[in-house]
């Protein structure tokens, strides 16, 4: 703790030799003394000045390039990137599926297990863990809103969602295999017993 008395001591040892000097290091500003605080007038460090000028030069250059010389706008940069992503998506995830592939899924217990897992993680919040319906419709009954519950239409609904009604599109969230598996699993739910069945929605389908 600096003791209080030291406040009053004018203790500038080592500076006194500079008194009267007008250049060089540690020259006191004549007359500058405020409540005992004096001021040197040392030059700003060279690197400090250098970076100051560099940052200004950068600022001017950056502004000029993007705002005056026709550099790309944020929107233009975004469009280019989105086009690339879209190309990737189309390439890796062709639209449409083959009914036979889906049939094969249903015959493969390993794939059906994956489907069940995906359903528990992604679908259960809206369709209830057993498929009995909650926010989304009951998937175990014989009533379907879309395309009579055929394998391929289930696939389409899961891929593209029903965005206006709150059924998300899973195309860009789940991998293609996961989608095939969960669709197979949904198809297999028909007739399964459920804890609480949501009242029917859509049309009665008699297969």
């Amino acid at each position: 703790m600096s003791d209080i008395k030291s406040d009053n001591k004018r203790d500038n040892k080592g500076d006194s030799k500079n008194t009267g000097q007008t250049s060089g290091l540690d020259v006191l500003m004549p007359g500058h003394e405020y409540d005992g605080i004096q001021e040197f007038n040392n030059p700003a460090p060279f690197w400090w000045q250098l970076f100051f000028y560099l940052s200004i030069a950068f600022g001017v250059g950056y502004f000029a390039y993007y705002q005056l010389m026709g550099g790309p706008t944020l929107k233009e940069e975004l469009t280019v990137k989105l086009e690339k992503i879209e190309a990737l998506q189309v390439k890796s995830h062709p639209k449409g599926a083959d009914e036979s592939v889906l049939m094969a899924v249903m015959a493969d217990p390993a794939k059906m297990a994956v489907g069940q897992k995906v359903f528990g993680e992604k679908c259960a919040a809206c369709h209830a863990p057993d498929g009995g319906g909650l926010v989304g419709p009951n998937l175990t009954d014989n009533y379907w809103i879309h395309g009579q519950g055929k394998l391929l239409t289930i696939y389409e609904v899961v891929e593209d969602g029903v965005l206006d009604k709150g059924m998300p599109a899973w195309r860009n969230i789940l991998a293609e295999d996961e989608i095939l598996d969960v669709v197979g699993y949904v198809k297999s739910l028909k007739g399964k017993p459920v804890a609480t069945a949501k009242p029917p929605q859509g049309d009665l389908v008699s297969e």
Partner: protein
Amino acid sequence: MNNQQSSGANTGSQNQVESFQYDDDIVRKFTLATLTWGLVAMLAGLYIALQLAYFKLGQNLPWLSFGRIRPLHTNAAIFAFAGNAIFAGIYYSTQRLLRTRLWSDAVSRFHFWGWQTIIVSAALTLPFGITQGKEYAELEWPIDILIAVVWVAFGLNLLQTIRIRREKHIYVAIWFYIATFITVAVLHIVNSLAIPVTFFKSYEIYAGVTDALVQWWYGHNAVAFFLTTPFLGLMYYFIPKAVNRPVYSYRLSVIHFWTLVFIYIWAGPHHLLNTALPDWAQTVGMVFSVMLWIPSWGGMINGILTLRGAWDKLRTDPPTKFLVAATTFYGMATFEGPLLAIKSVSALAHYTDWIIAHVHAGALGWNGLLSFGMIYYLVPRLWKTKPLNVSWMNIHFWTATVGILIYTISMWAAGITQGLMWMGMDSAGKLLYPDFVQTVIRIVPLYWVRAFGGLLYLSGFVLMLVNVYQAIQTASADYTNEVTDRYPRFKALTEKLFSPGFTHERLEAMPMVLAGLALVGILIGTAVEIVPFVTANSYSESIYQGAKVKHYTPLEQAGRDIYVREGCYLCHSQMIRKLDFDVVRYGPESKMEESMWDHPFQWGSKRIGPDLAREGGKFPNLWHYRHMNNPRDLTAQSIMPSYPWLLSDKTDFEVLSKKISVLKTLGVPYSDDDVSNAVALAHAQAKIIVDDLKANGATMVDEDREIVALIAYLQLLGKQIEAPQKVGAR
């Protein structure tokens, strides 16, 4: 304290030496207030930190929910803790630097009690959801008016003290104080303009992008002129006093003072990078932020190099330790700031905890440590006590420093981790972490670490409270006797000491001119950035390209007011940036037009939860109904608070006509019919939602429940533009 010897040495014999007293009672008051509110601010901070780590904390209690306590924490830290510290330090140093007692004892007391009233009002309104919904400017209009009055009282006291000063030239600390007063006054008044609806509710006069720009011009410069310039002034006083060495460089003071004042004001748009704010404003904000780095470091250099020849003080004198560490954190934060203001860095860091790390390096490091050092310096002098316990001060120093490091490092890690997870995409163009909540769960452990860092910092502070308390017990009986000083008025600093022609030194003898120039300095950037938005009739085609944008129905507006009240904007953004990974996750980038009727804008600054700009239609009504009741029912590991009271509390329908008419005054194109029929319209829309909820199995929903209004609002988000655009990257 007395300085006769030093003054005597410089005094021309022709000047009449006067004798006068300093008002240290006011400094003692502000010091005690700083310590009291510091505790409140830090406790609130620790509480919300723990809430993010453990969502059950304070669950189901509206006035303890995250969205309401976070503003309490930020306001307490900035305006109560730092604010009182500033006033203590300014009043102590100004009197001595000018060799003048404060102009008016009455105004000083009014300032003190007025400021405490503001703080108490904040503490009594924010937890109840009384807020304007703009960060660090949450307080409602009656409190805003009080702030303006008290702030002007402070400024008057400061400027009048300067006018009647004995020291002819004003020291650099005083320049900073002047700039503080002027700029904060301008910022606060311009940003707070609003039209009241009731005593506790008002609508900002600005909307959408204009509001966003004005808000962040304010927000950024509150950091600049409330948390930086006054503290630089304090640094310029307390460091040389503590180490008893001359300031390193006068000319550096001059350069960095003026560059800071001029450049800072432009940098606000760096809070809005990659958003719907027009590109030119973003670019201006970014380049000025980069240019701020070096002027800021000018202050740091001047503070730290003042220690040359007295480095041993760093070991021996605890206040010096705090002051110098604070200055070092200032240097760190002002390097990080410009870095974060670069568009591509912001793309990663914005909305993440990296920003939280950044502000706490500033708040805990720079503002906190500087205030502690200052108070340790002041207490023995103000109360004439025995020296404080040195080892306790040392322990405080280390707990504080280590606490800050744990805090910032954990939040850097959290921010960068989460930012990268948001960006991550695989070679099929799919997000690696499409579920937002995955990216939250990953960083929850770091929330615990952060809370521990905060706890450490807080415990050091508690030790300080004990230390100060014990010291004050030893105060000498006469500590209230006012300190007498003797000094001639306008001592003999004759003009011939100065180089001929115009020099900065002349300006230092003309404080009002200096003040005027500082005002001009801040108004230039303000004018260039803000005026084009405010004056162009914000709704004209030049800005909004004539889009047809739906405004809110009365029910949606009621829901929006609930959203603001609950502080949802503190966890959710409503701004999909012009960045590919944002668009793939949330849908097409947000357009300026979409928020053109938003009083206030709710773009947000943090994504603890996902962006909600295109939430409308994403989920069925029932989903929201259940999610608001308990988010865990829909998203297993969500850390979002539950809002069960929204299902039982009633929307205030009666006030809707008044609200709609105020918004109409502000330019939202409501018809007279909308105003007079607001209640009926709201009921009709509520009925549709309730019917849907019931059809899907919800029981016990009434039209007048708040949840219904909130759902109406959420379902409109992203659907404001009449011809909706294709959703999704594809």
